């Protein structure tokens, strides 16, 4: 199945969603792990306490790809994440994360043909505010 066929079959619908209660310790711990030092990210008693901007990149759904997606994981590797931030996460937020395949495309490189699968998670809080969009790229290399 080529990229065009995969795109038409697997994009455009939510295949997974998760709920997450955000605790202050989780926000502060992630900020410290990132090397952040500003109190508004690391100190829950700070009046401006909130998540570091990339907080939602740490959250994963219950599955990486839709059921029946024809991927060969032994030829795949992680091609990184990008995040678009709309609003900070606050302690006590109840986050919903919805997963969809945003894009599937091919490219060619030094190592041969590659198939890129863009897994997009969109995060919302309990007020329905869009917090962030995280695009995770998975690459499948062609067989040698």
């Amino acid at each position, binding site marked *: 199945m080529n990229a065009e066929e995969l795109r038409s079959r697997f994009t455009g619908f939510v295949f997974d969603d998760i709920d997450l209660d955000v605790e202050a310790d989780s926000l502060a711990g992630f900020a410290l792990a990132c090397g952040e030092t500003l109190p508004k990210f690391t100190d829950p008693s700070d009046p401006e306490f909130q998540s570091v901007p990339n907080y939602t990149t740490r959250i994963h759904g219950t599955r990486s790809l839709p059921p029946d997606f024809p991927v060969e994981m032994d030829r795949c590797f992680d091609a990184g994440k990008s995040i678009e931030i709309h609003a900070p996460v606050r302690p006590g937020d109840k986050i919903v994360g919805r997963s969809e395949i945003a894009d599937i495309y091919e490219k060619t490189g030094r*190592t041969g043909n590659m198939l890129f699968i863009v897994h997009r998670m969109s995060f919302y809080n309990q007020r329905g505010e869009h917090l962030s969009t995280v695009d995770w790229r998975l690459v499948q290399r062609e067989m040698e």
Partner: protein
Amino acid sequence: MILDLHSHSVASDDGRAKVENYCQWIARKGLPLDGLVLTEHRQFDDESDYRPLEDRFGLLILKASEVETEYGHVLVFGVNDDLRAAFDFARVDNRLATVLSESRRCGAVAVPCHPGRPKVGLCAHWETRGPVEGIEILEVLNGGSREGENEEALALAERYGWGRIGGSDSHIVSHVGRCATRFEEEVRDTEGLVRALRGGRFDAITPAPESG
């Protein structure tokens, strides 16, 4: 006039540089560039307007594309609606002969890039698949090349008497201007770039090292 004819911004899926940051870097480092051409992968960006950046930094910022063929990647300068209708820029299996002939028909110029690079460069395919008619210019200096790759490209260009251009192939700001093209005439816009490339009075160069 010196232009970096091969660069990628965040509009490319693997680009990590904003165009404004390229401009800031060129200004801060005093690079001897008069401008750059954005050659985004498998697409043409017809929406972005870089005129305010051009005015602010005194640089020429043009837009082109890098498309993919069975002979490797190809820069296309002078992209227009006719050319975009002629073949699918997003595909990775375009025919080089089609890209060359349609570019010529539509008033554009197609230039195989990083020819010495394995899998996505012209040289290896030239040996295995055979020559293709219609190439007039080759990117012989590519800033992302590994040892020997530019030399291989240069040898192929000299063998056939093709014109030679250079481009950084930058994906991050600090790589812009590593290689470039010196034009004997002034280029003011995309049409002028196409004219200059057809005129043949240009050559690939490695601009002077950073000044600071």
